[in-house]
């Protein structure tokens, strides 16, 4: 995808009605076709529906064991039972609607259609996974090394990985963000954050 096209996509994503602001990006530029092999959201929907049905049924079973009804009316399991049944039933309804009207896929029916790829931008999946992994690392580090150390270590890494900026920029932003958040929230507002074994 060219830089120009990607900018047009970005603008179209941000502002649905909008011609893009910069003269470089054409308002009438068609969305770039999905890359071959890109997974479309519509083809993943049935997987999610199955997950919902499993979750819904499991909730019903759990709720039944808790006891849904007692002499005094609803018992502890009542709300989870109703909610689980609703989740499973609605997922079933989505499956039926999709099966009955495959033509809707091309239309704009929010129940069934979304022909867009799950990850439209090149490298999007890598950035998303990197951020999630980075956040897991951040939470672990906060637990064992304290907030300041964790943030000073992880923020430059995340900035570098996700925004593809230079190491100097990433380290600068990471340290500045850490310092700013620490000063404003811990010092000025008195919110306490976990400290590491070395006292900060």
């Amino acid at each position: 995808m060219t830089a120009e096209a990607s900018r047009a996509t970005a603008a179209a994503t941000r502002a649905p009605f909008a011609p893009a602001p910069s003269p470089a990006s054409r308002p009438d530029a068609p969305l770039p076709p999905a890359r071959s092999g890109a997974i479309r959201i519509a083809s993943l929907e049935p997987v999610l529906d199955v997950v919902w049905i499993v979750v819904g049924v499991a909730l019903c079973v759990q709720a039944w064991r808790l006891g849904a009804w007692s002499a005094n009316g609803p018992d502890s399991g009542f709300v989870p039972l109703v909610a689980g049944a609703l989740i499973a039933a609605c997922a079933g309804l989505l499956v039926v609607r999709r099966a009955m009207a495959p033509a809707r896929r091309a239309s704009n029916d929010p129940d069934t259609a979304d022909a867009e790829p799950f990850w439209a931008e090149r490298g999007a999946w890598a950035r998303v996974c990197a951020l999630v992994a980075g956040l897991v690392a951040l939470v672990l580090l906060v637990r064992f090394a304290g907030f300041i150390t964790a943030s000073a270590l992880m923020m430059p890494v995340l900035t570098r990985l996700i925004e593809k900026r230079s190491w100097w920029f990433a380290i600068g932003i990471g340290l500045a963000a850490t310092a700013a958040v620490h000063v404003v929230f811990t010092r000025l507002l008195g919110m306490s954050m976990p400290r590491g074994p070395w006292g900060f």
Partner: protein
Amino acid sequence: MEALQGLLGGLSVIMTPANLYYCFIGSLVGTLIGVLPGIGPLAALSLLMPVTFTLSPVASIAMLAAMFYGAMYGGSTTSILVNIPGEAASVVTCLDGHQMARRGRAGAALGMAAIGSFIAGTLSLVALTFFSPLLAGVALRFGPPEYCALMLLGLVCTVLMIEGSAIKGVMMIALGFVFASIGLDSVNGTERLTFGSTDLAGGIELVAVVIGLFGVSEVLINIEQLARNEIVATRIRNILPTVEDWRMSWKPILRGSGLGFLLGVVPGGGPVTASFMSYALERRLASDPGRFGHGAIEGVAGPESANNSAVASGMIPLLTLGLPGNAVTALLMGALVIQGVQPGPSMMTEHADVFWGVIASMYVGNVMLLVLNLPLVGLWVQLLRVPYAILFPVILLLAVVGTYSTNKNFFDLWVMLAFGVVGYVLRKFRYEMSPLVLALVLAPLLEQSLRQSLVMSPDGFGIFVDRPLTVGLLALSALLVGAVAIGRLTRRQRPAPLAHPQLKET
């Protein structure tokens, strides 16, 4: 008279340097997040909610509310100048606002948006001031069955107001009920859905859930793309609208105020819906609809008024009934409860200072925002130059600080992360997050009132048909569901969702 006295009392509460300061900070931060496209009012509100726990209840709610209506002011700025809506309720403002800017009338569009917002916000507040005591008086006589029926009606309205799939909306509400029931059953102390985990026994922390759903998942969606919009430098002149502008705009402003007021009170409604409906209404009423989309000032004045009006009237169900109607008021309710103030009909008497203080703060905040927005508009535009590479580390750090500091519990951080990922995936599949948050807050209230109703009832569910008001509310719910179901079955073609999923509700 009672209302005027209350309001005067509220003004004396809010007119202290500390409270004015927090109201100002809220307005400032609200404008800021309204301007920045990468972060919406819900995300910002959830990220900064923990900060307010150290403040007094009045200062805390005044600041959070100011952030919300401040975002409505700020959102129009970027819509008009660079065609990027800063938040979802300003998406329609792009249509005609940016066209006005392209024709050299950016100043008039910005001025009319700010003045319209101010007029509508104030009108809506006046209605709120006089309407709330009446409603609270009626609500004082409500028992558990009435509350139960009212919440059911609220959830039905929420589903019907969803722009995307109603089925998915029902699922999100059900999911909210599931998450709310995790932990100890408040009636008999049974452990529910904890799977033996001691961390889960205390229930799921609301702050961690909303920071995950709105803060973290929004970052995940935003970092998918590297390309950022370039900002064109615009010089803004003639901020004050002309006589001709006024002639064309005063009716849309008044209509927007009325429409926004109604949609703010209806559960599931709110500023986003209000702005879209106001735009549609103005286009339908215009003598020359062809001008719309080409810089019609009514298309800016109407929606911008409607969204501010809806914010103010959205406080009515929260302050008088103790029931939030949308995700933002659900958050405000969470903040009030943490502060030890139970919102509801008795709040007006038991916590009169908070009740009237918050209402008075909104009058003051609207004035502050008018002053902040009109002369400083150039400054706000400069903010768009802040690259996302700087914004997202700050958002993530705020997410960690906010989540942890609420309970000083590491488990909450994992909850936040899990909800961030779940929210990201579900948003991709066009599930809306607002009904989930609303259900999470309403579920304990609904369950409790249902169980109380049945305990006090001699003949089971009979109690719901014995009381006229309960019957009326339940019949209304059934009627709404029936009418919409028939409407959908007979009309196969459904309108395309207006807002892009990524911009919705954020």
